[in-house]
Every structure is written in structure tokens, then in C-alpha cells.
């Protein structure tokens, strides 16, 4: 078995060009690093062993490097989709094919999406073809305020999508959390406090922790899963929208000082932007929410991102319930706001960063992926136009330095139906 796998791996390495171990140089590109800086013409991206060696102008290309000529086109880091269920769902509306939520589970915080992620779901290949190379994958909360542990995944065409399991714990503390905790936000915060205290109990003496066979509310495994959260070793992503909820969440650190908070949603973040900035808490927020879609989002505005950024908050785009394929459209729209009087837009470089390096930094992993700075994973896209524009798409993509296919079942359906009528045989014979 092992030998077969080795053989297969060898065969893959032969066909996949370039392979991870090679030195690859993408030359003659309009290179944008993804760190907020402006693109440079005639730039080079140098890759070795699946990592970026250097990128930008004046990069020396070693003689043995495999060269890819970008022909003057845009070259950027692969896009990072900020808050998705990629890999958990084939068809959302089909329960059997949807692992994003566990409504009937007795467990909550202990739920770990990593084993549920399927690298072969269509959504991964489709999202890849739109320029996304990595994503934050979060579970939805079931019948508890704790949804479980999310993962970071790549869109590579291989069997293994998760590159960082158990990357964070996710908790609902706004309107949704109130419903799950028994009907009020007040109850939500009691439930949360109790959970943190029980996690500490568990950490002090695991064998003495009874879970629900004693007077504890958390199952043993849920308490165990919350230990790294209360100890600050695992980020806690908190979904809240309302300004007052955001302040309450920031206050949690008075009692639990180690909490490594990430705010998710935060539609009204701009109303308390200075306090978020002072607390040093990063934010993942959708770019385009501007409707009072719920009472907790009465102040929602597309200027939220720009105003948070202007206040000094570490912020990235994360679309709750949005489509990860629209990542670049969301970023481009924030650039458009620069021309709207009274709105807070961001620059093109900041917009690219919002969907590349910024989500990685929010997750505390900006040194590992999300930009073309030296040492990062070599996720690189060559585009047929401005990457944030609506009509652009990738022409070449590398993930971890390995070139990726851009076909998927959508492109195959398209090719079959370029002309709708049937020919000598039924459509089922056209491939």
C-alpha cells in the first residue's frame, strides 16, 4: 500500500509542473505583494520549495529556475476567503451533503470541522477557479452558543485540504447567541462565563471533571476544547454585530484576561472603532453589509471597513454566509467608495490586502500565508486583468508552489453546452 502511494506520488510529481520542490520564477508580471503596497511593473516572483523567496522588482532569477512568463499580466498572492463553509458542504440545501452545522449534536465546543472537510467538494475547485487559494472554514452554531473549532484550508487539487486544524473556536454572542442561550443576551453572557469557568475547572483537574453527569453544564470534551481558549492558546472568534455587544465582548477580558479575541461580523464596529483599536482586537467583517437586516445591525454601512481601518483596527474581509467566489468583488467595491462623498473607502492596495494578507494576519498567521513576502507559502495567481475587477479571472495558479488546474464541473458543463442542441449523439456522450 505504502509503495503504491509512493509510486502515485512520484507519478503526480512528474505530471504536475512545477512541483513543490522546484525553483520557479514568475517573470514579467505586474506584481502586487498583497501587503497594502501598490503593484510594480515588470516584477518577478521567485519560489523555492513551495515558499516565496522574494517578489517585486529587481529579483535575480537563478539559472536553474523554471520560468513562467506572465506577459505583463497581474500577479498577486492567491485570495484568502475570510469566513466560509468550504469543504463542509457539497449542496447546502441537501442535509446529507452539508456538514456545516450539527443541530442535533450533544456536543458543541468540542466539534472540530477538520475531519469533515472534503477536499473533493465541487466548491473547492470552483472557488479555486475564481482565484481563491485559501480559506477560513468555520462551523455554524447548532443548539449551543459554541459552534466548535474551525480550520484553515487550501484549495489545492489534492486529497488534503486542511493545513491548520483547530485554528480557532467560534462562539455566537449576539442575537443568534441569545436565542441559543435561552432567549436573552443576558443569559448568553452567563452561559459563556460558566463555560470559561468550567474549562478552568477541567484544566485544573481533568479526572475530577464530571461533565453532565455532575452539576457541570459542559460535556467533558467541550470543557476540554475550551481550555486552550480560556488560556489564550486558541483564538476565540466571536460573532457580534451591535456596538453594545462589541463593547461587552471587549470587556470579557477583564475577567478572562488571556482570551485571544477575534470579532466576526461587527456591522456596527465603526461606532466603537476607537475602542476596538485600543483593545487590539482584530475584526473579520463582510465588506458590503449596508442594510439594517437585523435589529443588531441597524448601523450597518459599507463604510464600516474603511472606518475601522482608519481607526487603526486590524481588519480583513470575511463574508458571513457570503459566497467565497465573490471575495475579490467585495474588495473592489470598497475601492469604489473612495469616490463617494461621505463614504470611507480604501485604496486598491489595501483592498487586495483585505482579501490576502489581512485575513491571515487576523488569524495570527500572516507570517505563513496571504502575501508574496519572503517565507510565505507560494500561493500565486496570474490574472487576465485587474484582479479586483469584475471581468477578470485567473489564468495560472500555484498553491504551495504547485500549479493547479482551473477546470471544474462547471467548466465541463459549460463546454458541453456551448451549443444547446444535440448532435449525432445525446449530450451525455459529449465530453
Amino acid at each position, binding site marked *: 500500500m505504502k509503495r503504491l502511494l509512493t509510486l502515485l506520488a512520484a507519478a503526480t510529481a512528474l505530471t504536475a509542473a512545477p512541483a513543490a520542490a522546484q525553483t520557479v520564477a514568475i517573470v514579467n508580471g505586474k506584481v502586487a505583494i498583497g501587503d497594502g503596497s501598490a503593484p510594480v511593473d515588470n516584477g518577478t516572483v521567485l519560489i523555492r520549495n513551495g515558499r516565496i523567496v522574494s517578489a517585486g522588482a529587481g529579483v535575480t532569477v537563478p539559472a536553474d529556475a523554471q520560468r513562467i512568463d506572465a506577459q505583463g499580466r497581474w500577479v498577486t498572492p492567491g485570495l484568502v476567503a475570510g469566513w466560509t463553509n468550504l469543504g463542509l458542504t*457539497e*449542496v*447546502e*440545501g*441537501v442535509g446529507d451533503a452539508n456538514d456545516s452545522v450539527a443541530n442535533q449534536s450533544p456536543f458543541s465546543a468540542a466539534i472540530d470541522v477538520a475531519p469533515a472537510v472534503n477536499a473533493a467538494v*465541487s*466548491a473547492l475547485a*470552483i472557488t479555486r477557479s475564481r482565484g481563491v487559494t485559501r480559506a477560513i472554514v468555520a462551523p455554524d452554531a447548532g443548539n449551543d452558543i459554541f459552534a466548535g473549532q474551525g480550520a484553515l484550508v487550501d484549495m489545492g487539487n489534492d486529497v488534503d485540504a486542511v493545513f491548520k486544524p483547530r485554528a480557532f473556536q467560534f462562539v455566537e454572542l449576539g442575537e443568534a447567541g441569545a436565542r441559543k442561550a435561552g432567549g436573552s443576551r443576558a443569559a448568553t453572557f452567563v452561559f459563556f462565563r460558566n463555560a470559561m469557568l468550567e474549562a478552568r475547572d477541567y484544566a485544573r483537574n481533568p479526572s475530577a471533571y464530571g461533565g453532565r453527569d455532575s452539576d457541570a453544564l459542559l460535556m467533558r470534551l467541550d470543557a476540554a476544547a475550551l481550555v486552550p481558549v480560556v488560556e489564550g492558546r486558541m483564538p476565540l472568534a466571536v460573532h457580534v454585530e451591535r*456596538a453594545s455587544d462589541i463593547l461587552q465582548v471587549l470587556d470579557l477580558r477583564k475577567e478572562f484576561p488571556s482570551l485571544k479575541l477575534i470579532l466576526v461580523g461587527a456591522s*456596527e464596529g465603526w*461606532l466603537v472603532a476607537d475602542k476596538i483599536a485600543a483593545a487590539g482586537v482584530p475584526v473579520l467583517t463582510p465588506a*458590503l*453589509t*449596508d*442594510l*439594517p*437586516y*437585523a*435589529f443588531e*445591525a*441597524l*448601523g*450597518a*454601512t*459599507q*463604510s464600516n471597513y474603511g472606518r475601522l481601518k482608519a481607526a487603526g483596527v486590524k481588519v480583513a474581509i470575511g463574508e458571513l454566509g457570503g*459566497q467565497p*467566489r*465573490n471575495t475579490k*468583488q467585495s474588495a*473592489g*467595491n470598497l*475601492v*469604489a*467608495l473612495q*469616490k*463617494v*462623498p*461621505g*463614504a470611507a473607502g480604501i485604496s486598491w492596495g489595501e483592498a487586495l490586502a483585505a482579501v490576502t494578507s489581512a485575513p491571515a494576519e487576523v488569524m495570527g498567521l500572516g507570517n505563513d500565508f496571504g502575501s508574496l513576502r519572503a517565507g510565505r507559502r507560494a500561493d500565486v495567481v496570474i490574472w*487576465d*486583468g485587474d484582479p*479586483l*475587477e*469584475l*471581468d*477578470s*479571472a485567473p489564468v495560472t495558479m500555484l498553491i504551495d508552489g504547485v500549479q493547479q488546474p482551473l477546470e471544474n464541473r*462547471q*467548466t465541463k*458543463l*459549460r463546454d458541453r*453546452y*456551448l451549443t*444547446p*442542441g444535440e448532435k449525432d449523439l445525446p*449530450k451525455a456522450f459529449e465530453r
Partner: protein
Amino acid sequence: MNKTWLAGVAGLALLSACTSANDRPETASSTPRASAEPASPVYESTYRAFPGVLTAITGATVLDGEGKRIDNGTVILADGKVQAIGGADTPIPAGATRYDAAGKWVTPGIIDAHSHLGDYASPGVDAHSDGNEVTGPVRPEVWAEHSVWPQDPGFTRALTNGGVTALQILPGSANLFGGRSVTLKNVPARTVQGMKFPGAPHGLKMACGENPKRVYGSRNQMPQTRMGNMAVNRQTWLKAQDYKRKVAKDPNTARDLAMETLVDVLDGKILVHNHCYRADEMAFVLDMAKEFGYKVTAFHHAVEAYKIADKLRDAGACSAMWADWWGFKMEAYDAINENIPLVHNAGACAIVHSDDANGIQRLNQEAAKAMGDGKRIGIDIAPEIAWTWLSYNPAKALGIADQTGSLKPGKMADVVLWNGDPFSVYTRPERVWIDGALMYDANDPKRRPVTDFELGQPGEGDVK
């Protein structure tokens, strides 16, 4: 075959009309009704255009909405109408308020053929859930306008971010027959009648597929299957045909609101808007329309329209589509990004629709994505052609193309001045006129509507 059959139906209709006219005793007490129309029009539009000024927009790239592009063009608005459209040499009337639009674009206002604004208003609390009368699969008697909350902030976002000047509000898709739609001008008003597009015909919302069978199947009620959907549909049309015959024979027949709607469809007064994703189901609906003698004006969602674009063209049915919504349910599993360009390329009528309070703010962007995906497979659609998906084609599908949907002299001055190429992500509406009245001006906070709901709330009057 079809021709003979259609002629037969026409003959029958004529015959029954004659019979009823001859047989009807003319008395003061009887209220003669030619069809199932109410005795007098009710819930009529009270919309009146707001005052505008003589306006000249110059130097813009102008798309007329019917496939024509004018570089360095001029558009003149007067008395609520488009007075002139032309090149740089177009005469500017004296006293006109002038807008130098060099580097900017001018288009007809966007028309969304599929919206639930007001019926599913923001905030989306249960108290605002007014879009589906889920009490029976056949509810043609309900009217979407009776649910519309005109204070929904979604309308103003669609105006200021989306350049949407008219839109059709449909009931939802839980039912096979969901009720009558209403077409609105996107002008804030105290009442729904104050928004109603004057003279626009009603639509009938129908739905194929998963939604009706799921909703009623889960109650162990018909329909539970797609065959159940078709059976209930056909039985209902038979009832409508019966009712039509009855009324023709006896004008004092007790009114039946559900049947009145369906008879108006059979008489071509109400346009059918059929939510339908799959190609095979759309084909069944086209057959059903033949069976009962009505026309499908547009399939909505139509994610598999690309598979039968030739049949849709031949049937003269429009497809109202998203650019790239995909895979969220089984009947959306075969959606492709090239659906819109492939339908267009086959010579069928393509419409970009939203069905979404956020999507309606960026329909131009959805069209732009479709253009890009079309171009990559060799279907290069020019901006002036693509704009027909956003204004003229939806206007046709709503039965209002003689009044709006393109910048033709004499038509309503429903116009958007964009601050750049509207197919670019970096562009937003700068000004929007509806019937010649300036309803949005990005540079003037006083020309930015704030709904009653938003008064006194966080962010009141913000750009949003």
C-alpha cells in the same frame, strides 16, 4: 399543429364572447363584466412624478438600453421625459441645468424583474415575513402589493447604490401559484399605491420544483413530488378555463379572486413569471402553457436556461438569471457562470435579476461578471448590448417597455449618471433621475432618502 390549435382557441374565445353579449339581459342592476375583471379598478396607482428641471447631461458615454452606444453623448431631460439623445452636436435648450459628464457614463435606470423588497423587508424579523402565503399551494388570489412595506430601507439602497429605478415585487416561491406581482417605481412613498408603476400589468408568480413540493410535501399534502406539482398546476388551469366559460355565460357568476387572476392570465392581461431552475422542468412548463393557451413571459432563476437556450428562444420566453449563484440547492447544482452570455448568444431574451436585497444593489456588477465569463469562451458582448439585460429586456418582461427601459425620446426620464464605467467594480451611481426628478445625488446629502424606519437609528442619514 400549434397554429391550428391556437386558431381553435381564438375561435372559441370569440364565440363565447358573442354568446354572452347576445344572451345578457341589459338591466341596471347587473354589472356586465367582459372578463373576470373587478367591477372597477381598485388599488390604482397614485404615483405622480416629482418635479424635475430641464436637464442636459453632456460629454458622457451613453448607452441607450436598446443596444446603441454614443461616445461623448448628450441626453436632454424635459418634463419628466427623455427629450433628446445624441452626440456632442445635440442642441442644448436654453435654461437647462447642465451636467458635464466627461469620463462618466449615462444609462437608463436599472429594472429588477425579481425582487421581494417590502415583502421581506429589513429588518428581517418574523413580523416582516410577508412574501409567501404558505397556506395552500394555489394562491393566485393574493397580491404582492398588499404585503409591500414601502418603508423598507432596501428600496433606497437599491436606488443609491444600484441605480434601480423600477422593480417587480413578486410573492415568494413556496406556492405553485404564488399570487400577483406588482411593478413599482423606485420612488419612496407613504403608500404602495404611491409607488405603483402607472399602467403596468400585473404578473403571476408561479414556481416549479423543490420549493412547493418541499413545503407541502413536508405537511403530507399535495404536491409532494414534481409530478404532483404538474398535476396541481394542470388541474388549476382546468378550473380557470371552466370559470372563464362560466363568467362568459353568466356575468353574475360569484366572483372568485383566485380564478380572476388566472382568467386574466389566459386572456393575456397578466404576465406569467415562473420560478424554474431546471431545463427539464422549464420544458414541461412550456408544454403546459401550450396545453392551456397561455404564454410564459419569463422564467426566473433559470439556472439551466443555457441547456435549452434554443427552445427558450423559439418559445419567446425570457430568462431572468443570476450571474454566478451556484450549488445552494440541488436544482441549482448545474448553474454555470456563462448562463447569461450563452442564453443571449442563442438569440434568447436574457435578463439579470437579483431576488436579493443585497444583489439588487449591484445588478450592473452581475452583468459585468457575466460579460467577462462570456468573453473567455469567445462570446464578446459589448457594453451597449449587455445593458439590454438590465433595462430594456426586464422592461419588456414587465410589460412597460413602451414607457421606460431605454433612452428614447418621449419615454420616462429614468436615468442614471454613473461616476465611471458601470461595468467596473470601481463605479457607483452619481445621480439618479426618475421621471426627470433628481432622486439621488451623491454630492448632495439632501438628495439621499432616509426611510421612516431609519430616523433616529444609528447611522441615520449616513452614506450606507
